[in-house]
C-alpha cells in the first residue's frame, strides 16, 4: 500500500489525476467490498454462530466471503468470543500478519467490552479495541448469524468510503448512525 500512496499523491498534482484516482478508488473499494474474505478468530460461543453463518442455512459465500484459516489470505478479522490475557498476544500477532487493507469486526459482547465477563474476572481483556482497531461492533451474546452478515454489509459501506490515497476518504453513507449525526439524546426537534 505504501507504494500506492505516493503514486496517488503524485497523480493528484497532475491536472486530470483526480478523475483517475476516483475511478481507481471506485474499482478498489467496490471489489474489496464484495470479496471480504474472513479470518475467523473464533474462541468461544460466538465461534459457533460464526460457523453457523458460513454454513448452509445462512451462507456467507453468497456475500463473496470465504472463511480462510490463514491470516495472509484474508481481509477482515472477525474476533468472535472472549479474548483472555493468554490469548491476546496470539490475536495481536495474527492481526499483524494480515496483509494491509484489513478491517476488524468485534463480534459479540465479549469481544466488544468483555460482556458478561466485565466484572470480577482477572483474566479477560475488556474489549478487543484495547489492542486492535475495530471497524464494526456487533452487540449480542452471541449475535445471530444474520447480525454477522449485516455487519459485513455495513462494513461494505465503510469500505466504499475509503480511498487509495489517505487524504481523499469520503464520508460514510450508511444506515447506521455516526457520532457526527445529531448529538445523542438531544430533543426530538433534530428530525
Amino acid at each position, binding site marked *: *500500500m505504501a507504494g*500506492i500512496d505516493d503514486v496517488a499523491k503524485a497523480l493528484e498534482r497532475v491536472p486530470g489525476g483526480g478523475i483517475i484516482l476516483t475511478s481507481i478508488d471506485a*474499482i*478498489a473499494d*467496490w*471489489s*474489496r*467490498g*464484495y*470479496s471480504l474474505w474472513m479470518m475467523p478468530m473464533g474462541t468461544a460461543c460466538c465461534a459457533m454462530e460464526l460457523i453457523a453463518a458460513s*454454513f*448452509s*442455512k445462512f*451462507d456467507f*459465500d*453468497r*456475500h*463473496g466471503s*470465504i472463511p*480462510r*484459516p*490463514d491470516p*495472509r*489470505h484474508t*481481509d477482515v478479522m472477525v474476533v468472535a468470543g472472549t479474548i483472555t490475557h493468554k490469548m491476546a498476544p496470539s490475536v495481536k500477532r495474527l492481526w499483524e*500478519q494480515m*496483509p*494491509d*487493507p484489513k478491517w476488524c469486526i468485534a463480534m459479540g459482547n465479549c469481544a466488544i467490552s468483555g460482556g458478561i465477563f466485565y466484572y470480577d474476572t482477572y483474566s479477560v481483556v475488556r474489549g478487543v479495541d484495547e489492542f486492535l482497531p475495530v471497524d464494526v461492533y456487533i452487540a449480542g451474546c452471541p449475535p445471530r448469524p444474520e447480525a454477522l452478515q449485516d455487519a459485513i454489509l455495513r462494513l461494505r459501506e465503510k469500505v466504499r468510503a475509503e480511498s*487509495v490515497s489517505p487524504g481523499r476518504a469520503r464520508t460514510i453513507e450508511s444506515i447506521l448512525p455516526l457520532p457526527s449525526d445529531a448529538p445523542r439524546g438531544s430533543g426530538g426537534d433534530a428530525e
Partner: protein
Amino acid sequence: MTFVWGLLWGLGAVMLIAGGAVIGVWWERKVAGRIQLRLGPQQIGPAGSLQMLADVPKLLFKEDIVPDGADKPVFRYAPLAVFAPIAMAAAVIPFWAGWAPFDSTVGVLFFLAVPAIGVIGILLSAWGSHNTLSTIGGLRAAAQMISYEVPRSLSVLSIVVLAGSMRPVEIMDAWRWWWVPLTLVGFVIYFTASIAEMNRGPFDLPEAESELVAGYFADYSGFRWAIFMMGEYGAMIVASLFGAAVFLGGFRWLPGIAGFVVFIALATLVITAVMWIKWTFPRFRQDHLMTFCWTVLTPLALLQLVVAGVVSLWL
C-alpha cells in the same frame, strides 16, 4: 517466426488459464454450494458468475507481504515456477482436427514431462517462506507429485501404443470410438493421477486445510497467492482438456464446429467430476497416498498397457 508465435501463444495460454481460473473458481464455489445445500456466490452478475470480478482486483490491491525470514528471490519467483509449466503444457493439446498450438512429434511426452517442473516450484515456495508447516506441506507435495507421475504416464502410454505415434494430432486422427471402452480403466487412472498432480480433492495433503492451515502457500498474500490459485485451476483445466481429447475423443465425435463444442463439453464434465470428488471424500493420509499409488494405480496402468499392446497387435 516460431518465437513470435511462441510469444503469442504464451499470452494466449495465460489468457486461457486466467479465464479458466476465473470461471473455474466460480463454478467450484457453485458446485460446492449445491453439494452442501447452500447457494454459493450470488450477488455479482447473474447467479454470482462475476464474483471473480471482485476477487481479482481485490487481490491486486492487496499488500504483497514478503516475510523477512524468507529468502527473497526464491520466495518471489516460486509462483512463477509453478504457473509456467502449466501454461507450457497447454501448448500441445490438440484443440482442432489436425491442429495443435505446437504440433510436435513428441507432444504427449512433452505434456507429461513439463508439469514435473511444478514440483520444484512448490518446493521453492515451501522452503522459501521459512515456515515449519509449509515446509512439511512442500515435502508432502514433492513425494506425492513425483510418485503419481508414474501411473499417469503409463495410462497415457496405452493410448500412444494404440495410436502408434506420440504426435497428438496423429493420435486424434487415429482415434476410434471403441478406444473409449478399451481404455476406460486407463482414463480412470489418468483422471485420479491428474487430481493428485493438481494437489486437489482427496489428495490435497500439501495444503491440507485442517492440518497445515494452508500448506506451502501459507505465507503468500495478495496477487502472488492468486498466481498459485491460477496454477491450480490451470492444471485442472489442462489435464481435463488433454484427458477429454486423448481418452474421450474430444472433437472426433462430430465433424466440424460441433466436434469442438462436444470437446469443450466433455472437458467441463471432467472438471466438474474433479470438483465433485473434492467435496465428497475425506483426505488421504500420507502413507495411504503412497500405497494407493504404488500398489493399486501402477499395476492397473501396466495391465491397461498390456491390453492396449495386445489389441494394437491384432490391428
